[in-house]
C-alpha cells in the first residue's frame, strides 16, 4: 500500500513546474496590485 502511494508521487521536476504554475500568476497579481496602488497615490 505504502509502495503504491509512493509510486503515485510525481518527480521533483513536476513539483518545480507546479511551483512555477503558482508563482507566475501570483507575480502578475502582485505587480498589477502595485500598479493600482501607485495610481491611487
Amino acid at each position, binding site marked *: 500500500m505504502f509502495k503504491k502511494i509512493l509510486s*503515485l508521487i*510525481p518527480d521533483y521536476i*513536476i*513539483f518545480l*513546474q*507546479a*511551483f*512555477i*504554475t*503558482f508563482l*507566475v*500568476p*501570483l507575480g502578475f*497579481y502582485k505587480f498589477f496590485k502595485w500598479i493600482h496602488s501607485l495610481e491611487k497615490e
Partner: protein
Amino acid sequence: MTSSSLDRITSYQAVMFITNFIFGAGILTLPRTTTEKIKTPDSWIAIIVSGLIITLVAVIILKLCQRYPDETFYQFNQKLLGKWIGSLLSLTVICYYIALSAYEVRTMAETTRLFLLQGTPTWAIMMPFLWIGLYLVQGGVNAIARLLEIIFPISVLFFLLVMFLGIELFEVDNLRPVLGSGVKPVLKGVTSSSLSFAGFEILLFIYMFMKEKNKVTKVPLLGVGIPFIFYTMTVVIVIGSISVDVVLSQTWPVLTFIRSFEITGLLFERFDSLILVIWIMQIFATYVIALFIATLGLNQIFSKSTHAFIYSLIPLIYLVSMIPKNINEVFKMADMISNFSLYLFFIMPLVLFIISKVKERKYEKM
C-alpha cells in the same frame, strides 16, 4: 463568494452551466466507453435509458435546492447532516472537483499533443490553460456564465456540422440487430452510460446564484436534455459509420470517425484538427466550472478570501494532473473519477432529499 446582486445568473445561463459541464472531454471517448460493456450496437438505447434516469435525479436535485434557495450544497448539507459530517462531505466533493479539473486539463494536453502540437511539452500546453482558467474564475459566476454563452453555440454548431459531413459513411446495418442479444447487455451498459452524464449535479451549487427561482423547472430538463440528444446522436452516427469493432479498438473513436472522411471543395478537407480546436473550448469550460465549484466550497467552508484559494488550487491541480504516467493511466483516472461520482451524486442527493423531508415532518409534528 456570496450571491450578491451582481453575481446572479439567468435560467438560460444555468442551462448553459449544466450542458457545458456535462460535455467536456467525455464525448470524444463516449462511443467506446458505452460500447465496452455492451459489446453490441445497442449502446444508443443504454444512453436513452440513462438519460431518462439522470433527468429524474436532476429533478430531485432541483427539489432539494428549492428547499434551500439562498444556500449552496456546501451550506445546506451542514444543516441536514450536522457540522462535522457536512464539512467532511463538502471536502470530499471539493477533492472530487479538483481531480475532475486535473483530469480535464490532462486530457486536453494529451489530445493536443497527439493531434495538434506534436512534440510540445505537456507543461507548456497545460500551464497557459490553467492560468487563463484562474483569471476567469476570479471574475466570478457571471463572467463564467457569459463565457459559456459564447462557447456553447460555436462548439455545438461546428460539432453538428462535422458530424453531418460524415453522414455518407453511415450504414444502418452497423446498428443492427437491435437488441440482438436481448435487454441484459443494455442494462449492463446503463451504469457506464449514466456516468457520461456526470456533471448534472452542478445545480446543487449554482441554484443559489439564479435570478428567477420560480422559473427553474425547465433548467434540469433542458440542461440534461441537450447533452442527451447530443450523446445519442454522436453514438448513433459514430457506431453507424465505423462499426462496433472499430469503435472498441480506438482510443478516441469520435476523432477516428472525423478522420475517416474528407470533403473536397470546402476550405478544409479534413476536420479533426478543427473540431479539436473547437472542443478544447468545451474542455476549458468544464475545467473552469470545476475549479469554480472547488473554490466556492473552500470559500464557504473556511470563510477566507477566494483569491487565496484560487491561487493555491492551481499548482495542486497541476500536480494531480501529472500523476498518471501515460494515456492508459489517464483513462484509469477517468474511470475512478466517474465511479466516485456515481456514489457521490446519484445516491447522495436522494439521501439528502429524504433527510430533509423527514426533518420537515418532524418539525411539523412539533
